[in-house]
């Protein structure tokens, strides 16, 4: 598998570390209580059999976190964005 890092270009799988589902969102207001929302965020996943938005870390490269869209059946990479950009857009 090869991922095109927005900063470094196309690189091999061995440079990256995987984190997981990028669609789950940390409860915005934090909060001190272990609510269902928190449980869902920390533990529960859709785990779809198809396109998956997920977080990768360019460990042996620029240290950017990436939002990669990937087909879990074919491993085809459908898109890559810098997580920082996605996050800024989300909070805007």
């Amino acid at each position, binding site marked *: 598998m090869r991922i095109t890092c927005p900063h470094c270009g196309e690189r091999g799988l061995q440079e990256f570390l995987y984190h997981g589902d990028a669609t789950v969102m940390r409860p915005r207001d934090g909060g001190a209580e272990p609510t269902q929302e928190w449980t869902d965020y920390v533990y529960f996943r859709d785990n779809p059999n198809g396109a998956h938005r997920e977080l990768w870390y360019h460990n042996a490269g620029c240290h950017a*976190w990436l939002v990669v869209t990937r087909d879990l059946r074919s491993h085809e990479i459908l898109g890559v964005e810098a997580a*920082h950009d996605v*996050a800024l857009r989300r909070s805007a």
Partner: protein
Amino acid sequence: MRLPRGGVVDRSKILNFTFDGKAYQGFAGDTLASALLANNVKLVGRSFKYHRPRGILAAGSEEPNALVELRTGARREPNTRATMVELYEGLEAYSQNRFPSLKHDFMAVNGLLSPVFAAGFYYKTFMWPAKYWEKLYEPLIRKAAGLGRNAGVADPDVYEKAHLFCDVLVIGAGAAGVQAARDAAATGARVVLCDEHPPREDAALEGVKYLPRTTVFGVYDGGTYGAVERVADHLAVPQAHQPRQRYWRIVAKRSVLASGAIERPMVFTNNDLPGVMLAGAVETYITRYAVAPGARAVLFINHDGAASVLAAMGNSVMAIAAVIDARAGSSPVIRDLAASFSVPVFAGAVVTRAFGKRAVEGVEITTRDGGVVKFDCDVVAASAGWNPAVHLTSHLDDKPVWKDEVAAFVPGKLPPGMSVVGAAAGEGINAGITPLWAVPGADGKAFVDFQNDVTAADIRLAKQEGFIAVEHLKRYTTLGMATDQGKTANVTGLALMAAATGKTVPETGTTRFRPPYTPVALGALAGPHRGKDFKPTRYTPTHAWAQAQGAVFVETGMWLRAQYFPKAGEDWLAATNREVLAVRNGVGICDVTTLGKIDIQGPDAAIFLERVYTNSWTNLAVGRARYGLMLREDGFVMDDGTTARLGEHHYVMTTTTANAGKVFQHLEFCHQWLWPELDVRFISVTDQWAQIALAGPKAREVLQKIVDDGCDVSNAAFPYMAAGEMRFCGGVKGRLFRLSFSGELAYEIAVPARYGNALAEALMAAGAEFGIVPYGTEALGVMRIEKGHPAGNELNGQTSAHDLGFGKLLSKKKDFVGRAMAARPALMDPARPTLVGLKPVNEADRLRGGAHLLAHDAEPVAANDQGHVCSAAYSPTLGHSIGLALLKNGPARHGEIIRVYDPIRNGDFLAEVVPPVFFDPQGSRLHA
């Protein structure tokens, strides 16, 4: 028998070799197989299950029978295909899987028992008495099974890994592959051409990187291909500094598969006798190697593609007894050609059985009208058609598709960027074919998968017992699971199952081909990463100095750290005890560079720290450091360490050695993904700074001697937890932190990494008058246990802040990572095992990490298990063993006597539960 002329062998270069100890000669350019045939050696091996005599079936990498042990000693390679071994001077090969000799193999008795040993027989028996499986049956089966013998000692050769990037990767340097490479190169593309065979002149093209002896064994995601180049396998031993093999990771925008096709054997009784060969292989031996595999041949075919075989045989010195063409009318191509050699053609006939003892001596055929005719022959050249070598097209889970016109599977959906050309695409093969999957009446000695002894009868039995799905067929009969992965067998086996069930081949399906295409040495896939080079080694900046001091080193992750510094006659314990006492009573130094160091800068750095640490950070003054605790988002402890504020917007964080990378990644995650609005940046500076701990009552006196003038390190100016920039040894800019892991008056001095060695030497010189000692990780560990500091054994990812006695560090006033989930009642349950200290009741008893804890009068059963010892050490300060443990309801049990239960090391004694801080609980020494 060697033909008088022809072939590509170099008759001027005679090579001596031995097979089973007997000396033979061949020519440069021979394979071991062609050289054996040239010497009329037909019996080469024994089959897996029935130990039937086997010869050479093929001329390429699909060979299932002619497997030998090549080379001797540590270089012995079992299961080596004689057809792929390039002959070299002095080659030694041995037959395998036979006892006592290839000719007289006792295990051939299995062949007589073959009616019992049908597919799957072992699932139905060997069950009584139950305990006999491991004691009797399994050892016997293991000994009888297997093929060749591994050397059993370390592989002496070296391997390399390398990368290649190209526009077009061409796989296979036959006519189609060479043409594809030439065409691609003409466009200016970067082209790589890989071929599993030795170099050929016609494949050496300008502008093409040609890798002969290189098998592209697998297709992986993203246009990545795995290949192995057999750099030195054609030599007796690799030359100096030459790898045996080189593993290539090839990244190609496009690929062209030109892997050709693999011939199908005919399935008839005794079709495995040496001398029964694939027709195409017979042609190859004649034309390429100038070797006639025998004197008198029968050709058994069902398609026109075998005409070239007939021509090759007819033009050689071989006699041809007959052409047996299973097709009702044969074909003009075959009939005319046979007539030109005056060879009779039996159309609509089949070979029903071969006979002979250890090699074929003749065949019996059934003619179209049912008559039986016998021929004497020593070669049966058989071809049931060709299968395109589609293997690589299916490595990404796509399946080949059946094409009726050629009666074969051809590539279906292809991996991204791949095209297929030539025979691999089903072009130019199986002209005029009438499929014949097995001769009528083919029985328990008509082999489909030669190496695994799977017969036509086995396939019928699998059907009868319900193992009909292709994968069931494969797994139940072991069809296609031998070293050749069924290259000559799978399609035939599948077609026979289709016939047995009355379905078509495509309805029956196909198994997926798995990588590798041909077997790959594990050493090649590992490359140079073995022995000391298994993983990189990180040396601390004082490594050379520590070495000079006689340090013993210990692996700590990738790092090598000084474990202790023994003096003459000291063992590890004596040295450690001495080092601990020297620090407690005087002063010592220890390299702590391995702790992770992260530089954090930006106007929002304080807010950021506030969110990643559980405790409060906004009120930390510049020039001060603070202990911090980090949780994972699931509320369990991730890491701890101190962070110092060096400037208004500048912090430096320390992490544990083990978690340095993980914490850095976590900070980046929190910033880039959770809180992108914060203006803060991070960089790992672990390798930039050498950091040395200076600890002991005399630490300040030593320090004062190495700080530059004007640097005030008095207790008032630089109190406990102070931090700041400082100059040392006459102008070296560094940092000073008043931190203590040992519980003593202590500092950590950081200087640019290149000064690490010099700093150690300067400290030793300055401390000489105070009896300074270097101390290692053992003494460090003892002192932290004496002080009750949790470390790796306690921060094991399973503990909550509450468990470690850090509950009060969970701020109630702010959001931080892990806050919500840490509030789950289960994480604060007092009944959870919680940190305590342990002291043996009998001071001679030795606590050990990993012992479990029981109430003092409890039976040793699981229900009474109350915790375990995490860390233990002998405390020279206290004169007895001490331990840190996680004990249910721990803090409420100080003073209780409990049972320390360590049956795996025969330990069982009593200990007293005490507070985890054994030494200087008030911490007065820190502030001295």
